[in-house]
């Protein structure tokens, strides 16, 4: 019977019990430092963190080169991109002016 509630994991949905295989030495390391009542939460957090990395790597793969030459004639070279950023940020430069309030 599942005894944890969804609020233990900061999720609004139901929880499921699953069976996974884990190396004995890794399990021993976890049980040494993580109290039994916190192990599910610890594993959920570990999965969340690794999934976030995998999801980020996937979207990085998908988005690499997504901005085309046709759509960005002002960003054809690395120097163009640097200049584009400089131009944009240059509009924000704060200059001291005599007599300003």
């Amino acid at each position, binding site marked *: 019977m599942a005894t944890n509630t969804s609020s233990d994991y900061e999720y609004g949905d139901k929880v499921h019990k699953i069976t996974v295989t884990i190396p004995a030495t890794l399990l021993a390391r976890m049980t040494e430092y993580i109290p039994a009542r916190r192990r599910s939460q610890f594993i959920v957090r570990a999965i969340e963190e*690794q999934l976030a*990395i995998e999801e980020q790597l996937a979207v*990085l793969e998908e988005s690499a*080169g997504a901005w085309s030459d046709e759509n960005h004639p002002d*960003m054809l070279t*690395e120097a163009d991109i640097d200049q584009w950023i400089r131009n944009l*940020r240059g509009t924000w430069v704060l200059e001291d002016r005599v007599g300003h309030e």
Partner: protein
Amino acid sequence: MALGCWKTALGMSRYLLDTGPVIQHLRGHKPSIQLIRRLASGGKLSIAAMTRIEIRVGMVAAEQYITQKLLTRFTTLMLDRAVADRTGDLIAAMRQRGASIALPDAMIAATALANNLILVTYNQAHFVDVGGLSVYPLFDSDSPT
């Protein structure tokens, strides 16, 4: 400075991407693609709110879906009270020294400082006078120029 991918307790990497590397990635610059992928393998990367603004300025409508999808996967660090205070103090200190810094540069530097992150930028010269700021040591193969 060590080059490893340090991680915080929340699984976030210790890197804040400046706008340049993100645009270079989107434009298909291979060294930037490889650099960001390498950093991302150690944890979620962060961008400052200003970088998110600049990317949105640069994208065109046809690229909105994939661009927004990429931005969503980064942790966007907001301009909160700590960042605002750091930004103001940084600009004031530089002006006292007779130097100037663009407000976006100051906000991005302050975001890195306030969150104890290492800034990944191709414009290191613009941040060299910012005291206490850690800047990722790019190799020649990482740099676009």
